[in-house]
């Protein structure tokens, strides 16, 4: 059974003058997915989202929403928060949402519902310029929820928030996802992405490095953390072993990716036989963060 992608990107390329921001990017997003859109700063995430939302023009390539060529009207069914919340500072939260509702052709009655979902009911009549950053982000998410969107695009929704704010937004996103809305979440908070997202795409320098299911990434390899007094000797010894896929140094420990499962005790014995005694050994599952950093460091070799 083939499903139609809700979003399909085909060979998208974008130049800013001579700078190639996007390099032949292709990607499909299926309904119901929660896609983590990852990449270092300058990798082309915001450029891609800008093109999809009609504010930037691609140099070449195409994309489609809901299986059809892009039109402005489609965006009434897409909720978007790109980089920063953009509203009229002298208008209240409610009045700002009124303008969004008029543009999306959505009845005003939805405004109160949406304000309740994001927890801004009490401050709805205060001017936007009086809002804290967290409130501004929440208003933006509220605006994105108007019109029962089928897709939401959230670019760094927790940008600049304190830890409490980050948790609040995360819970909000999870509850939105539960309604079956497809979400594209661009974020630097990899552990958040690991918790929330079903799929992940990694960009670097405008190219797609990887795309796939989060669960597969997490299952893809086992990680063992090791440390010894002589780290270089430890690293050399490990690199010799066949079961080791890669070794990466982080501060004063080594992070080792295994090709196949090895019992930690067995590893300990092997190293002791070589005269290396570890002072720290911890087996853990692959994390998105580790996978991401590995992927990027491979590229930079």
């Amino acid at each position, binding site marked *: 059974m083939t499903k139609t992608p809700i979003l399909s990107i085909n060979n998208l390329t974008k130049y800013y003058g001579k700078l190639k921001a996007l390099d032949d990017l292709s990607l499909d997003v299926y309904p119901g997915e929660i896609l983590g859109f990852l990449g270092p700063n300058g990798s082309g995430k915001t450029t891609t989202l800008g093109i999809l939302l009609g*504010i930037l023009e691609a140099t070449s390539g195409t994309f489609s929403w809901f299986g059809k060529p892009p039109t*402005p*009207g*489609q*965006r009434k069914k897409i909720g*978007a928060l790109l980089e920063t919340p*953009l509203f*009229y500072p*002298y208008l209240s939260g409610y*009045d700002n949402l009124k303008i969004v509702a008029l543009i999306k052709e959505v009845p005003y009655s939805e405004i109160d519902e949406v304000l309740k979902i994001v927890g801004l009911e009490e401050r709805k009549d205060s001017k936007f310029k009086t809002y804290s950053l967290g409130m501004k982000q929440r208003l933006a998410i509220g605006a994105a929820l108007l019109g029962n969107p089928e897709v939401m695009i959230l670019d760094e929704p927790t940008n600049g928030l304190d830890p409490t704010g980050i948790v609040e937004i995360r819970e909000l996103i999870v509850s939105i996802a539960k309604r079956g809305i497809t979400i594209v979440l661009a974020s630097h908070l990899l552990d958040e992405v690991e918790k929330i997202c079903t799929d992940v795409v990694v960009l670097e320098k405008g190219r797609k490095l990887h795309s796939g299911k989060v669960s597969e990434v997490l299952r893809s390899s086992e990680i063992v953390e090791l440390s010894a007094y002589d780290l270089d000797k430890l690293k050399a010894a490990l690199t010799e072993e066949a079961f080791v896929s890669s070794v990466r140094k982080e501060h004063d420990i080594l992070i080792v990716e295994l090709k196949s499962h090895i019992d930690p005790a067995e590893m300990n014995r092997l190293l002791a036989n070589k005269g290396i005694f570890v002072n720290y050994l911890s087996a853990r599952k692959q994390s998105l963060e580790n996978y991401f950093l590995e992927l990027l460091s491979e590229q930079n070799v």
Partner: protein
Amino acid sequence: MFRLIKIDFYKYSKSRTFWVLFITYIVTMTASIVGVEQFLNTALSKAGTDSAVPIPRFSFYSFPYVWHNMAYLAGMFKIFLALIIVFFVSNEFSYKTLRQNIMNGMSRNEFIWSKILFVVLLSLAATLILFFPSLVMGLIKTKVLTWSVVVKKLFFLPAYFLELMAFGSFALFVAFLVRRSALAIGLLAFYYFVLERIVAYKLPDEVAAFLPIKAMGSLIDVPNSNLMKLFGVNFREYVDMQDILVTLFWMTVFIVSLFYMMRNRDI
């Protein structure tokens, strides 16, 4: 179309800046219309006592001349309306609210139309602001009131509307081109007060008549008055077809270029 008017209405109706500027405009216009005759007469009577030639007193408000006189006077304030337009439109760029409007589902063309409609409504309002006080002053000060004398030169009102619409579309053009409010306001003022005047001065009159601002300003020429007749100067008492066509031409150019500017740009 009503949706676009509604959207812009909600954008501005709660802006204190907008109301301060707009109410200032209304008050200034009304005060000028009502007070101009008295002002000029007082100013000139002081001069008149010294001169050998008796300077006749002005009577601006008699029908049918009141329409011409007041429309000419009102035309001097159009720069104020243009500044309102430039300020609010370029703010949509600098605050990036335009960006959010587009992301929310407004097409670029719809955005442009909403601003054009804003200029139309503003010009209509300004024309009414010209109409009512002038009508009242005319009714008070005209000695012989007949229906024909009231409506005889009423064509200056649509000419005034055209002048405002054209100047407003020039303001839109500058705002969309430059996108930053301070720069846009500065450029508008510079072009209006300085640049075109210098160019017009250097060109022969027949050619200068084709410049945008000159044509718009010439729609309503300096009204004649008894004072001018004394000096043997005779300005036009009608609206010239060439000026109308040139003004329409420039207005079309400015508006069409808005659509062209927004077509494939990054916002």
